[in-house]
């Protein structure tokens, strides 16, 4: 997680600086490769079936690259299921230098700096419209970012003097959201999605981004930001949005991103 307001950002770190290094999991000795795993098989382990069930668990662990695999715990759950805890050594190596991550491409700003940047460049308040779309009734995410109470010790966007925040709450339909974004002349639209059953968060986001693309000329379209605990930061292009935020994002990060894209970059272009 990022630092709070007080520390002014370390510049975005670069991807190229990481050295090639091969690692194995660490149990109690360097290089022992030990991992633990728990899972359930739809298999009875009552009476004589216990050995078969254990063997099946070992088989799965072996196929996952654990060898040797030790079934530390096998517990029947009713007549049809068994829960296993398996310890074992994996033969895989990991190389952190080839891990791809979304680097923070913007500088972390304090609320003061955010306000100053907007005032200096936009010369008006920046308008942010937020909502939970679809049937999702969980406002915890959007509220953490927008409400003055904020999240993780940071105050929400409502606290920023130069931001005009319109929080539409839960269960907002996409047409309502578009309409409101037009009416408010929104600079940015923030959408939170918590419910992920049947990929609702992905479907809703795609529907939303398509609707905005249809309703606005590319240059006039508000910045689209989506957030939720089950999103993947690398998916922004696929979802048709400008940025995806995941679990643990703080209001300061969102505000800094908005300034980066709407103030800093616009000024540069």
């Amino acid at each position: 997680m990022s630092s709070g307001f007080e520390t002014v950002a370390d510049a975005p770190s670069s991807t190229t600086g990481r050295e090639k290094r091969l690692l194995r999991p660490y149990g109690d000795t360097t290089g022992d490769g030990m991992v633990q795993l728990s899972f359930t098989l739809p298999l009875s382990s009552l009476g004589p079936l216990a050995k078969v069930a254990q063997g099946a668990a070992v088989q799965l662990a072996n196929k996952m690259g654990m060898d040797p695999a030790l079934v530390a715990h096998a517990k029947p759950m009713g007549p049809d299921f068994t829960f296993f805890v398996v310890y074992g050594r994996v033969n895989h190596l990991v190389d952190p230098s080839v891990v791809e991550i979304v680097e923070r491409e913007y500088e972390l700003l304090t609320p003061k700096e955010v306000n100053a940047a907007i005032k200096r460049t936009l010369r008006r308040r920046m308008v942010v419209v937020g909502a939970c779309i679809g049937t999702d009734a969980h406002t915890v995410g959007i509220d953490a970012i927008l409400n003055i109470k904020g999240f993780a010790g940071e105050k929400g966007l409502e606290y920023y003097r130069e931001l005009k925040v319109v929080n539409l709450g839960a269960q907002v339909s996409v047409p309502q959201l578009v309409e409101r974004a037009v009416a408010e002349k929104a600079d940015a639209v923030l959408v939170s999605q918590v419910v992920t059953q049947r990929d609702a968060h992905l479907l809703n986001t795609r529907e939303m981004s398509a609707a905005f693309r249809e309703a606005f000329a590319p240059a006039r379209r508000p910045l689209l930001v989506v957030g939720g605990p089950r999103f993947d930061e690398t998916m922004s292009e696929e979802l048709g949005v400008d940025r995806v935020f995941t679990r643990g994002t703080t209001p300061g990060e969102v505000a800094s991103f908005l300034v980066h894209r709407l103030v800093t970059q616009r000024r540069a272009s």
Partner: protein
Amino acid sequence: MVEERRRSVSKPKLNLDPATVRRARGLARKVGRPIVKLAQAHTTVSVERATLRIAGLAGADPDGTPWVNRLADAVRADVGLEHGLALPVWDALLRGEAEDLETLAQKASAGSTRFRLPEGRQAQKARTAARRQVAAGVRRIDARRRERERLISRIGDAPRKPWIYLIVATGDIYEDIPQAQQAAREGADVIAVIRSTGQSLLDYVPEGATREGFAGTYATQENFRLMRAALDESSRELGRYVRLTNYASGLCMPEIAALAGLERLDMMLNDSMYGILFRDINPVRTFVDQRFSRQVHARAGIIINTGEDNYLTTDDAVEAAHTVTTSQLLNEYFAKEAGLEDWQLGLGHAFEINPDLKDSFRMELAHALLARELFPKAPLKWMPPTRHMTGDVFRGYLLDGFFNLAGALTGQGILLVGMMTEAVVTPWISDRDLALQNVRYVMEAAGDCTRTSALHRTGSSPSVPARCWGRPSTCWSASPSTTKDSSMPSPTAPSD
């Protein structure tokens, strides 16, 4: 039996000042009374539709719009809602517009019936006819209540308190059923079927068995019936009556309460202010719907669960602790006014204090005990940690263990089982199994601590070492007065 004895011997541990408690209740009454007056003088579309449902109107048109909505909309368009639907509807039936409610609803939605507000003798006749038909529905609810009582006495009740409350939520009633039966087999005394997200804001109750829902399954009469039937089967198999819970909240709470009564649901989530505070529903409508739904629950012998946990999941559990107690007092006032009895008040409370705070467990214990002693006859619904479940399932398991311990030590009536995978996934079968092992261990290991201490305090069981209470001051130090309670036989503090 044991339960009864424990109650009778246990002495208050907090020594709450009775005058302060009386004053708190008096304030709740003062706040609540004008709201009750308002509720008595108003009706809502959902209250009216609930009345039609109790009178026997069920089903939906081919588009899935329930007939109660169709009929209510048609009557409302002709004569308005303020007089209630009963007079115009039964007047139309008496005029021979249709032979029964469903036909009337069909005709009305086709636009071939006009409604009027009858007067004089005709109004009297319509009133009598309406009363007779609705009373028949109320008798069906009464019959379901008696059926529950009969089943409990024949099959047996949950063997111990707290009742273990588990949630199923697949979105598909046919998936929910085997999961619920499995959960019952694993030890659940109460099964709650979480509703689909968004149902609270639907202004109609969906029809039929449903297989599509997000993060939950729609509350429908058929889903209620299917699940209750399945749990009746499990109850017989297990030799204990397994209770079924759903949600009477949101826009259709009166109708859902009526359906719960008709389908013998046993508990309903039903908070007096949740819709206003957390779902932005019109306050007048909420209070009117609330009162009606609670009257139905009272009649149907349903235990309500109130939603105080929401105050703690949306605010700091220490700073906002008083909001829980305030809401419990208001919920109690509104519930009693609507006819619910103490045993039906599952007043809510949750274990949500930041575990990084020093003395967090002590504060949890103190607050849980406050609820226990403020409402000594209410079952109390004890809700597990969610805010401080981080995804570290191992730490979460420990936190749930402490939650269970606080529940055991303070005699909570209904314990919602916490899942270590809270905030990670919707619970897996293994999560539930582990969670139940956690509950069982704590209840077996510490469930009798309250009894021990109580017996110990009355001096009736000197043989019990009262280990837990060896130093009551550490456990109950939230109540300094207790520790100095001289009426208590001197604690057999293990001399170490």
